């Protein structure tokens, strides 16, 4: 059996009174490219944030390769939702990507030429090298998303969490991003993506988790991505064309 990259036990999260995630148990095997799908308000982003310790759960635990997240930070990279930051912040694309190296640097130590080289390589990988000195507000939505992806690539992690990386990007960027994600999987990395477009799930991903406050199902796309689970998750009789 494969190694478990991420294990979530009995995770429950609530803002105020209403639970956003209820008693989630989840095993994510190493080396999968996994989509988390579910309707709005299903807790998809919250699940990622709780796993990464951004939100404190009221119950449950998370482990990354068998140890708590605190001990395994350097194995994990994160791409937040593009809308979560102010893109008018006075900084350049290269600078944002460099931020991916801050975690391994730790407190006070400044990034040097080694970190800069890594950042430039990541920018090249996402096709943004010629924009390295561009102020980030002067980038298109798709370009901003690529910069965020490059920042995660610089973290050189084993597990990548991405919150809606395809939101508001054009078809070209979407293909460019998914190709990079597939490359990561080929290199043995685990990639977990909050995803909205059900049509593309079978084409892009090999693993899927259905979420709607509770975990509905998780497993290989070819086994569990079916009308039955979609209906359970979305509450209506959902039909998608699945190209197997």
């Amino acid at each position, binding site marked *: 059996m494969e190694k478990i990259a991420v294990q979530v036990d009995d995770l429950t999260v609530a803002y105020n009174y209403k639970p956003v995630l209820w008693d989630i148990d989840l095993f994510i095997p190493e080396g999968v490219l996994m989509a988390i799908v579910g309707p709005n308000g299903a807790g998809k982003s919250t699940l990622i944030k709780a796993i990464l310790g951004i939100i404190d759960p009221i119950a449950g635990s998370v482990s990354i390769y068998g140890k708590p997240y605190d001990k395994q930070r350097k194995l994990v990279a994160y791409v937040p939702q593009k809308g979560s930051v102010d893109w008018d912040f006075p900084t350049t694309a290269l600078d944002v990507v460099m931020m991916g190296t801050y975690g391994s640097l730790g407190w*006070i130590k400044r*990034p040097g030429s080694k970190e800069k080289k890594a950042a430039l390589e990541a920018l090249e990988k996402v096709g943004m090298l010629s924009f390295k000195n561009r102020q980030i507000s002067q980038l298109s939505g798709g370009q901003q998303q690529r910069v965020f992806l490059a920042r995660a690539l610089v973290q050189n992690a084993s597990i990548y969490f991405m919150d809606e990386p395809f939101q508001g990007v054009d078809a070209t960027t979407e293909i460019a991003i998914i190709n990079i994600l597939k490359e990561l999987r080929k290199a043995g990395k685990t990639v977990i993506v909050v995803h909205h477009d059900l049509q593309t799930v079978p084409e892009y991903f090999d693993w899927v988790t259905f979420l709607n406050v509770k975990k509905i199902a998780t497993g290989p796309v070819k086994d569990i991505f079916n009308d039955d689970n979609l209906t359970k998750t979305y509450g209506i009789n959902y039909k998608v064309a699945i190209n197997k």
Partner: protein
Amino acid sequence: MSITEYFQLVVSDYTLRTITLGTAVLGAICGMLGSFAVLRKQSLLGDAISHAALPGIALAFLITGAKDTNVLLLGALVSGLIGTFWIRGMITKTHLKTDTALGLILSLFFGFGMLLLTFIQKQPNANQAGLDKYLFGQAATLVEKDVWLMTTVTGICLVVLLLFWKEFKIMLFDADFTKTLGFNIRFIDILITFFIVLAIVLGLQTVGVVLMSAMLLAPAAAARQWTNRLSIMIFLAALFGAFSGVFGTAISASQNNLSTGPVIVLVAAVFVIVSFIFSPGRGILFRQLRFRKNRRDLKLQKTLQFMHSIAVNHENIKHPHAIKILNNFQGFTRKTLQKMEEKDWITITGQQWALTSKGFHKAENLYNQQLADDRTAD
């Protein structure tokens, strides 16, 4: 006294020099820390904190019965910090929005402070006169000791800023991401907020609780207009702040009956207005000019493309066509045709135009060209 006399006097006159140094240092530290407040979208936090400091001053006087500046400012610091933590508590623990929490704390503390001030004024104690100077500030009361205090705090603040530069920057841009990297964002947050409160408290004596937030925000807002780099923005904000201090003091010292605090704030406001209009990248003036030029260029390009669509049907692209056929197309005037001839895109002979090979290629590559322009714009 005229402004020039003032600058001569600054060198020789001890009092004037002290006050000028004080306002300059104050402007610098406020500009520096104000940049953080502006970038964190906490502009109004400064206003709330400065108002929240007032009851602290009054209580410190009531308890000690003395008007020692340091003691009063310590009181201001304590009550400013209490106000700040209440605001943060309200935002995280209740459903109240940030603006409501700020407004509540601001008016509550300020009201309480005013109440205490009027109570103190009614007391049969000659010592109480002059506490109300903390409302609008009085730079003339600055002494060397105050300036040393300000300079020391500015120095410490600078060292901390340089030390934690990377952490401040990433926290300002993306707090969630910073947390996943393992940085203690609460610590960074408290550090920034503490320094902002400290800067406000230092400025109370000079600028006063009512106008203090302008000292924080104006230099930072002006600086943001001139640069897209955080380091330069903070440097410029400190510079603008210091200049506002110096010029404000100069103007107020050279005219009778002009109170220093408000003049400093007005000078800072001039920096803001000039920056909003004249900064090359983000200023209104140059943006408007660029916008106009782009529209003109686009008009020319549209005409060119229309010509291209006609010319492309002929074997010889330089085959002349009547200007009349452009009538179907709205985008041209005599002037645009002349401009196009100047650019060597077309030749005009009599009532006929013909594309040049340069114009033909230009039209073919218009779309690609735009992308390329975009790339080389850096």
